[in-house]
């Protein structure tokens, strides 16, 4: 017999003033450390890509709103967040049409045709990225993208190097401190590990994302990578490089936590984050992709409705002698 | 009862008519289809193997039966006057089924003129390179008949395509089969060419 009583007070309720606009604004604030670092590192082309990505995402949503004769919803900044995250995942040298096609897929196919905000079964940003990666692999080769840049660190994409040279060679090329401080080649907003973590912690403290997904995600990366690297340290790298390179951290804090495509109860959230991370390491170590983050999280988006059925019993059910 | 009979009669007549019609169309198009297969699959391979020839191998082809299977042989007069013969063998165990290999053999000195992959269903970009990229099959060019044509890791003389060992193996099997076939059937081939 359960004696706990849930009391709900009478109306009127107090609205705490929060809104979609507030939430999305805070997500954008949280990305700032990584974004600013990316702009400093990669210069004006990075500003161009980010600005184009953000604005084109909002324009696509506006166009879709007008065509479908619905209320204009760009004011909630949701597509702005999509555009910003999308831009953060592109190399700074991306051509303009790549950005615009990507935001089209992300906003229109990823979000609007499912019914707009909150109705998308997949993370729109990842949908856009997956489309682009399948079509234009060339532009996601970070080694080739930054061939004209001068860096004061190893100008090799860590994960691609890991794939082709093995863990031993990579360990010397990429000291962990460099990776954490963003001294690595990668997408605009994904290199500065520390900045992403700061942003993520800010979001957790403000309550816009729950701690379960990022934490279980990171635990998943560490556990799986450790298992692999203990089995064969020559081929498989340890958790450090997996955690601080590629899209891992941006995935943990900004992509896997996207509201409508991630679970909402504690156990499902823990499972969701953990298995997304397991899939990432499996794809990186066994699959053909250098960085499996995008496909791994999309895969878990598919599983999301299933694992979200692990939930507390609804009130009033299961009563036998009513 | 009447309905029953009409059902049986209608269906029988319908299938009989349709069978007859199809047989007629089939026999009407058969030569044309064979010519098309020759033109689009075999002729380009043969053209690459022999280069310019002085006769029409498609017209002078002959058939030899061996071990219950029929093989088509295409005789060719090469530009330098020597005689050669081309035929197709199927290499078992490709990634997507059998791999067809056309081998041209010079009858004068018993050397392989060249070999080309004709029909296959291998993975594009991997196994399909056996056909698209002649570098691999060029290894057969000018090999004497007694060469061991298996892959290098099986003590043979052929380098496998990197990333497509299974396809390479199937192609070498077809080549070895062609060697055997030619050795066994040479007297008959000579008889037919004369």
């Amino acid at each position: 017999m359960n004696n706990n009583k849930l009391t709900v007070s009478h109306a009127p309720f107090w609205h705490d003033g929060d809104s979609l606009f507030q939430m999305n604004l805070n997500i954008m604030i949280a990305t700032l450390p990584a974004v600013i670092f990316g702009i400093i590192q990669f210069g004006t082309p990075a500003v161009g890509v980010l600005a184009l990505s953000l604005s084109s995402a909002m324009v696509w949503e506006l166009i879709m709103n007008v065509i479908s004769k619905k209320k204009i919803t760009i004011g909630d900044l949701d597509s702005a967040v999509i555009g910003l995250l999308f831009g953060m995942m592109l190399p700074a040298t991306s051509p303009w049409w790549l950005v615009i096609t990507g935001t089209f897929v992300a906003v229109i196919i990823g979000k609007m045709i499912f019914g707009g905000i909150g109705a998308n079964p997949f993370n729109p940003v990842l949908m856009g990225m997956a489309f682009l990666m399948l079509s234009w692999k060339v532009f996601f080769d970070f080694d080739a993208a930054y061939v004209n840049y001068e860096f004061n660190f190893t100008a090799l994409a860590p994960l691609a190097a890991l794939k082709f040279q093995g863990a031993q060679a990579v360990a010397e090329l990429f000291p962990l401190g460099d990776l954490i401080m963003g001294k690595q080649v990668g997408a605009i907003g994904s290199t500065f590990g520390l900045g992403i973590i700061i942003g993520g912690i800010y979001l957790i403290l403000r309550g816009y994302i729950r701690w379960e997904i990022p934490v279980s995600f990171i635990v998943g990366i560490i556990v799986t990578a450790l298992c692999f690297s203990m089995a064969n340290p020559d081929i498989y790298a340890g958790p450090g490089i997996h955690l601080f390179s590629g899209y891992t951290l941006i995935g943990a804090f900004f992509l896997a936590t996207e509201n409508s495509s991630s679970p909402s109860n504690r156990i499902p959230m823990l499972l969701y984050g953990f298995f997304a991370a397991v899939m990432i390491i499996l794809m990186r170590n066994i699959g053909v992709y250098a960085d499996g983050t995008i496909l791994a999280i999309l895969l878990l988006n598919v599983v999301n409705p299933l694992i979200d059925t692990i939930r507390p019993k609804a009130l009033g059910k299961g009563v036998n002698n009513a | 009862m009447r309905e029953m009979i009409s059902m049986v009669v209608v269906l029988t007549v319908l299938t009989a008519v349709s069978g007859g019609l199809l047989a007629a169309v089939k026999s009407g198009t058969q030569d044309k289809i064979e010519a098309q297969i020759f033109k689009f699959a075999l002729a380009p391979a043969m053209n690459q193997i022999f280069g310019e020839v002085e006769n029409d191998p498609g017209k002078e082809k002959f058939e030899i039966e061996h071990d219950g299977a029929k093989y088509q042989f295409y005789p060719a007069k090469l530009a330098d006057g020597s005689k050669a013969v081309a035929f197709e063998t199927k290499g078992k165990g490709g990634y997507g089924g059998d791999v067809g290999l056309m081998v041209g053999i010079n009858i004068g000195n018993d050397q392989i003129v060249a070999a080309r992959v004709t029909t296959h269903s291998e993975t594009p970009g991997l196994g399909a390179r056996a056909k698209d990229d002649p570098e691999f099959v060029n290894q057969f060019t000018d090999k004497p008949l007694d060469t061991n044509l298996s892959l290098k890791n099986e003590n043979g003389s052929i380098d496998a395509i990197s990333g497509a060992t299974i396809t390479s193996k199937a192609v070498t099997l077809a080549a070895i089969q062609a060697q055997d076939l030619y050795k066994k059937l040479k007297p008959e081939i000579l008889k037919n060419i004369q």
Partner: protein
Amino acid sequence: MAQSLAKEFTKGLWAEIPPFRLVLGLCPVLAVTKTVENGIGMGVATTFVLVFANLLISLLRNVIPSKVRIACYIVIIATFVTIVELVMQAYTYELFLKLGIFIPLIVVNCIVLGRAEAFASKNGPALSVADGLGIGIGFTLSLAALGAVREILGAGTITIWGGNPVFEMGPAFHPFAFMVEAPGAFVALGLMLAIMNLIGSK
């Protein structure tokens, strides 16, 4: 009479255009529309089968007992499909290689059986031929349109006939390879359906 003939013919071109309005026969629509050429080839083959199957079925509609009608329709349709297959093999071998298994699969295309059951078995031969021709041409046009969208985005070319592109984008164009892959077919079809509905709803 002439008026209703025209009506039956034109309804297949817009009001009941198969893949977009009826959403039927999607298997070939999705599978073979990598290029315009493939789409047209498939459409013409299907049109041939539709017209002759409709004609024969409507001629025999009073003879065929209703209990075995589906079996009879399938026999008739399969016969014409096999004829198409043999003829294509004999005269357009390259196209036949590209369409491959989808030529024999016209037998199970629901448009063909659907028209036989819904139209030809209830109407006279002239009307049935008009219906088959209209639906067939509509199907061909849809396949060609979808093929054009996918080919121009996915490969940057337009191939109408014979394997040589009649139109090519310049080297500055980077093909959106996703569109010629299988999932791209679904996305392209969905967007085209949406556009059709948008136009139709006005």
